[in-house]
């Protein structure tokens, strides 16, 4: 397994017409937060067609498997990705968390209005907007999230307030 290439990971999903929203740390990075994240978190649209495209690219292009190193190799399946649970995968381009829904049962359709489009290798990719990421982090009690929250709030302020003279 080589070094993570998270940009290429996103671009590969987008190039196979998978509908998804980047959430979590990389969404914050894309909007200017000075943090480093080691994986990609996505919420995918759970229609049969989209899940079929997602499974196809995960298995045949990204060599994805569940991140349990102790057991046998378990590939993502249509059945698992049809649910609202979280599939923590390792791909040949880095770790990928595929989330049916996030906090409060928010799925693709619920999050789409709170996303914005960015361009990655000429593909238009949805990322969860910074204000929503801040809302989600505020609801978390994990120490790691509390630390990141400070950075996200500051980044949000800088992007929404007029700059100092």
């Amino acid at each position: 397994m080589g070094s993570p290439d998270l940009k290429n990971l996103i671009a590969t999903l987008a190039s196979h017409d998978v509908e998804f929203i980047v959430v979590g740390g990389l969404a914050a990075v894309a909007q200017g937060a000075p943090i480093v994240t080691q994986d990609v978190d996505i919420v995918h649209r759970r229609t049969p067609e989209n899940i079929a495209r997602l499974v196809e690219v995960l298995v045949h292009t990204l060599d994805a498997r569940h991140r349990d190193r102790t057991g046998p190799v378990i590939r993502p399946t249509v059945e698992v990705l049809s649910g609202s649970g979280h599939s923590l995968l390792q791909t040949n381009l880095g770790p990928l968390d595929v989330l049916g829904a996030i906090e409060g049962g928010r799925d693709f359709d619920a999050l789409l209005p709170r996303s914005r489009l960015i361009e990655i290798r000429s593909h238009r990719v949805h990322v969860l907007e910074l204000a929503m990421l801040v809302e989600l982090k505020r609801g978390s009690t994990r120490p790691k999230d509390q630390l990141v929250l400070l950075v996200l709030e500051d980044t949000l302020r800088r992007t929404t307030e007029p700059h100092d003279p």
Partner: protein
Amino acid sequence: MSVTRGRLEIVKYDSDVTLIDAMLALTPEERIDQNDRMLRTLEELRDGLARSEEPHRDARQSRR
């Protein structure tokens, strides 16, 4: 880097540019590139530390 009154700032030497300013000057794609570069650097550091630990570990084991 320091946290002052809830604001994240880099320690200022001869520049008023904060880390956030530096990130906001990039495109989203460039910001993700920057993240990937940092990951590679962290991986190299981790590998280097693991390699430098090997002789010490071997020495400790041979003393037992």
